[in-house]
C-alpha cells in the first residue's frame, strides 16, 4: 500500500513534466549564456572599479528604500481595497495594476509630468520647498516604488482576502478597536503575504531600468543603478555589461536565499 503510493508519487505525469522542464530551461538558459560568456579572468579587476561598487551600493540602497515605501503605503492600500467597500473600489483595484502593464519608460515620463520640475505636483514642490526630484537619488527611489508597488499591493490584498475575518471579529468582541485589530491580529495573519510581496517588490526595484533612467536620469553615484550601468556598458563594452549583470544577479540571489532561509526557519 505504502509502496504503491510512493510509486505514484515518483511517477509524475509526463504531460506536466515536459512543459515544466521546457519552462525551467527557458528561464535558466539565458543565465547559462551569461555565465558562458563571462570574462572570468578580468572579473576581479572589474569588480574593483569604484563605479561598479557605487552602482551596486546605490541599487541595493534604493531598492531597499523603495521596498520600505511600498510596504508603508502599499499595505494600507491593500487593506483599503480588501476591507472597505467604497464606491469605485473595482476601478481603484484596476488602477493599482497600471504600473504593471505600463511600459516602464512611459511610467517614467508620467512621473516627470507629475513630479517633474514643471509637473502638476512637482511645480508646487519646487516653488514651496525648492525640492526637485528628477536627477536625484530620491527620484530613483520614487521611480522604483512606482513600478514595484503593485506587486506588494496585489500580494497583500490576496493575503487579506484569504485571511479568516472572524479572527478580526473575535478581536473586536475582546475590545479591540479597528486600529488595534489591524495591528495585533490582521497584520500578523497576513505577515507571510507581506513578506512575499516585499520580496517581489525588492526584486522588481533592483532590476528597474526604464522608469528610473527616464525620471531620475543617469549619473554615477547619484542615480546610476546597476541596470543603468549595465545598459550603458552594453553600448561599448559588452563584456563589462555581462560582469555587471552577473554581479547584480549574484547579489540578489544571495539576499533572497538568505531571507528565505530566515523565514522558513521562523516559527
Amino acid at each position, binding site marked *: 500500500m505504502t509502496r504503491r503510493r510512493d510509486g505514484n508519487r515518483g511517477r509524475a505525469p509526463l504531460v506536466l513534466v515536459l512543459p515544466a522542464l521546457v519552462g525551467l530551461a527557458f528561464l535558466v538558459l539565458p543565465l547559462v549564456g551569461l555565465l558562458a560568456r563571462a570574462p572570468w579572468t578580468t572579473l576581479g579587476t572589474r569588480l574593483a572599479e569604484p563605479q561598479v561598487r557605487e552602482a551596486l551600493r546605490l541599487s541595493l540602497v534604493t531598492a531597499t528604500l523603495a521596498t520600505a515605501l511600498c510596504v508603508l503605503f502599499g499595505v494600507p492600500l491593500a487593506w483599503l481595497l480588501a476591507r472597505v467597500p467604497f464606491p469605485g473600489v473595482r476601478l481603484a483595484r484596476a488602477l493599482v495594476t497600471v504600473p504593471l502593464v505600463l511600459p516602464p519608460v512611459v511610467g517614467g515620463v508620467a512621473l516627470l509630468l507629475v513630479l517633474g520640475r514643471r509637473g502638476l505636483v512637482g511645480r508646487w514642490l519646487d516653488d514651496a520647498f525648492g525640492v526637485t526630484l528628477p536627477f536625484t537619488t530620491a527620484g530613483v527611489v520614487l521611480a522604483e516604488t512606482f513600478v514595484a508597488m503593485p506587486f506588494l499591493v496585489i500580494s497583500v490584498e490576496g493575503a487579506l482576502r484569504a485571511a479568516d475575518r472572524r479572527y478580526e471579529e473575535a478581536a*473586536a468582541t475582546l475590545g479591540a478597536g479597528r486600529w488595534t485589530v489591524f495591528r495585533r491580529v490582521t497584520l500578523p495573519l497576513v505577515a507571510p503575504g507581506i513578506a512575499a510581496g516585499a520580496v517581489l517588490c525588492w526584486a522588481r526595484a533592483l532590476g528597474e531600468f526604464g522608469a528610473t533612467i527616464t525620471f531620475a536620469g543617469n549619473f554615477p553615484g547619484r542615480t546610476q543603478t546597476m541596470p543603468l550601468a549595465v545598459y550603458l556598458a552594453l553600448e561599448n563594452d559588452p563584456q563589462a555589461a555581462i560582469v555587471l549583470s552577473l554581479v547584480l544577479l549574484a547579489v540578489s540571489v544571495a539576499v533572497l536565499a538568505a531571507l528565505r532561509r530566515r523565514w522558513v526557519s521562523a516559527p
Partner: protein
Amino acid sequence: MSGLDARIVVHRPGFALDLALTAAPGEVVALLGPNGAGKSTALRALAGLVPSGGHLCVDGADLSALPADRRGIGMVFQDYLLFPHLSALDNVAFGLRCRGARKAAARREATGWLDRMGLAAHAASRPRALSGGQAQRVALARALAVRPGLLLLDEPLSALDAHTRLEVRAALRRHLDGFAGAAVLVTHDPLDAMVLADRLVVLEAGRVVQEGAPAEVARRPRTGYVARLVGLNLFRGRVEVREHGPVAVVQDGPSIDIATSLRGEVFLSFSPASVALYRTRPDGSPRNLWRATVGGVEPQGDRVRVRLDAPGRTVAADVTPAAVADLGLVTGSEVWTSVKATEIQVYPA
C-alpha cells in the same frame, strides 16, 4: 434591570429575525433551533457583529448604539478562533491589553485564568498545539478574562469529537455555574442545551416558538421540530366530547381518543415506546387503532425506531429487535397500530 434585556430585529432578503431575549445574572439561556433559524445571527447581533434593530441592555446599560469593541460582551466562537500567532497566555491577555492593562499585569491575570481552567502547563503553547478541549477552555478564559456582563457561546461543543464532548460539556457546565453574569448559548444539540442551560428558547424561522425550563420543553414540545428533538410524537387538535369520552380532532387528520378535562385547542404528545404494533387486527377493541404502512426501520441502540405512515398522521414507534422479526417489519409492510389514551399527554396549545 440587571442581566440581559434585548430585542433583536434583523431583516435580510428572504430572512427576518425578531427575538426578545432576557437572561438574569447567573442564568444560562440556550437558543435552540434548526439550521437557518437565526440563532447565530441573533448571537452576532448581540455581540455587535451584525447590525440590528431593537434594543440591548446589559446590567442596566444601553449598549444598542455601541460597536462590538465597546460593548464589553464576551463571546466564545464556534471554532474558538484563538489567534494563531499568539500563545495561549497572550490570547487570554488580549482583551485585558485592549482595555489598557499593562503587559505584565495582563499576563499575570491571564495566568490566573489559565490556572482556573487547569491549563497552567499550556500557557506558552500556540493554539495549534492545543487539543480541542484545551482550545475551548482557552477561548472561554479569553472571553471571561474581560469580566463581561454577558457571555455568548456559539456552538461551543460542536467542534469536538463525541468523547471529548462529554468531558468538556461537564467542565463547561461548572465554569458557567461559576459565572456571575448572564449567558446565552447557541446550539442545535438538545443534550447540550439540557445540560448547560437553565432555560431554553426555541427559534424557528427567526421567531421564538417555545420557551421554558429544559425539562418542561422536553416533556411538552410545541412544534414538530422540538418534538423530533426530544423524541416524542406530537399532534395538535381540538377537544370534542363524544359519547364514549373526549377526543382530539386533528385538522385533516384522525380523531384521537384522549383522557383529559381540557377543552379547546390542545397538543397531544406520546412517546414512541408507547405505540403498540400488531400484525393482524387485535382482539377486543382498543381505542386509537389504525392501519399504517411501515415507512422506515432504523436501529437506535437496543431499540428499533419504526416510522409508520397513515393518511394524516406519521408517527414513530420504538420496538425491540425481536418484535421487528416477529412482526416481519420491513419498509412497505402493513401493520395495525394503537396508542392507549392514558399514554397520551395533553396540554393546552
